[in-house]
C-alpha cells in the first residue's frame, strides 16, 4: 500500500491530516435554521479529496482517523480516543477515508474540466453519498435499528452537509486557481 507512496506523498498526507485536525480545534459554526451545528469534519474530508487526490486524500483522512484512535481529541467538541470507534456512529467516521478517496478519484478523472460545480457534485458523491452508504447500515447493524429508522435519524445532518459541500467546492475552486495542485500530485 505504501510502496507507491513517496516521501513527498507522506509529507502531503501528514500535513493535510494535521490541517484537518487543526481546523477541528476551531469551534463549530452555528447556522440559524439548522438543528445541528456545522462542524469542519466532513468539510475536511471533501477538501482532501478535491485538493490532493484519491490516494493521498484518502490516506490523509485515514491518518486523521488513526490519530483520533490513538487518543488525540480531534473530533468536533474535543472528542476522540478509542471510545468513538465503539459508539453507534463509528461507521460514519470509518467511512471518511473512503469518502475522500472517491471524491479524489472523481476529481482526478475529471481534472481538466474541474470547476466549482464539479467540485460540488463530487463532494456530494463522496462526502455525503459514501459517508451515508457506510454510516447508515453500520448504525442500523450495531444499534439493531431498521435501515429506515437509521436513515431517518441521520437525515437531520443532510442540510448541513450540503452547505459544507458548497463551501468545499468554492474553497477547492479558489485554491485550484491559485496554487499548482495536481501537477505535483501525479
Amino acid at each position, binding site marked *: *500500500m*505504501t*510502496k*507507491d*507512496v513517496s*516521501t*513527498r506523498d*507522506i*509529507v*502531503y*498526507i*501528514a*500535513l*493535510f*491530516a*494535521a*490541517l484537518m*485536525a*487543526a*481546523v477541528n*480545534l*476551531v469551534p463549530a*459554526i452555528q447556522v440559524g435554521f439548522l438543528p445541528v451545528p456545522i462542524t469542519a469534519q466532513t468539510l475536511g474530508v471533501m*477538501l482532501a479529496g478535491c485538493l490532493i487526490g484519491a490516494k493521498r486524500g484518502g*490516506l490523509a483522512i485515514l*491518518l486523521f482517523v*488513526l*490519530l483520533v484512535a*490513538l*487518543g*488525540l*481529541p*480531534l473530533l468536533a*467538541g*474535543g*472528542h*476522540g*480516543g*478509542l*471510545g468513538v*470507534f*465503539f*459508539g*453507534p*456512529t463509528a461507521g460514519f467516521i470509518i467511512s471518511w477515508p473512503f469518502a475522500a478517496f472517491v471524491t479524489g478519484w472523481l476529481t482526478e478523472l475529471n481534472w481538466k474540466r474541474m470547476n466549482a460545480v464539479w467540485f460540488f457534485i463530487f463532494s456530494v458523491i463522496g462526502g455525503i453519498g459514501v459517508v451515508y452508504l457506510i454510516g447508515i447500515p453500520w448504525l442500523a447493524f*450495531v*444499534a*439493531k*435499528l*431498521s435501515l429506515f*429508522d437509521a436513515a431517518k*435519524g441521520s437525515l437531520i445532518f443532510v442540510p448541513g452537509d450540503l452547505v459544507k459541500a458548497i*463551501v468545499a467546492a*468554492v*474553497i477547492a475552486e479558489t*485554491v485550484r486557481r*491559485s*496554487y499548482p*495542485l495536481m501537477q*505535483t500530485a501525479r
Partner: protein
Amino acid sequence: MTIGLYQPGHSALHRLPAGAKLAGLLVVSLALFLIPSTALALLSVPVAFAVYLSTGAPFRRLIAELRGPAVLLLIIFAFHAIFGSIADGVLTVARFATLILLASAITHATPISEMAALVEWLLSPLRPLGVNPEKVGLAIALAIRFIPLIAEELRHIREAQAARGLAANPLALFVPLIIRTLKAADELADAIEARGYDG
C-alpha cells in the same frame, strides 16, 4: 506529549501493555455481540464503569466525555422504545455503554507514543504487501508535530482578518490556510529529499 486524552497515572490499566488492552477490548466487544444476553450486557456496564473510574480521570473530564455518547444512546433507546421493543433498546444501549466506557478507559491509560508503537508493530506483518510501518510512523509523527503549528497559523490568519473587520468567513480563512499548508508541505518534502532520506 501534552495534547491528547492520555491521563498519567499508576492504575492497573496504566501498567498493562497497550497490545493486551486492545486485545482485551476486542474480546469483550466480540463476546457482547455474539452473546445476545441482556443480563450479561447489563451486568457488564457497572464493571466497565469501575474500570473507567479506576484510571483516575477527574470527574469533570468524565462528564464532558460521556455527555455526547449518553445523548446519542438515549436517542437510540427512544427509537427502540417507540418503533421496536424496549428489550432490544436495553440490550443495545447496555452493550454500547460497556464498550464506550472500556475503550475510553484504555485511551485514558495509554500514552499516544505507546499506541503509535503498537500500530507500527501491528502493521509489520503487512510488509510483504508493500506497507512500510516506518513510513506510517513518520506520517504519524509529522502530523502530530504540525497540528499545533497549523493551529497557530489559523489563529494568525483569523486575527489578521479580524483586524480588517472580516468576520468568520470560511473562504477567507481556509484558502490562505490551505495554500500555506500545501506550500509548507512542498518545502518540507524538498528539505527531506535534499537530505537523501528514502524511507
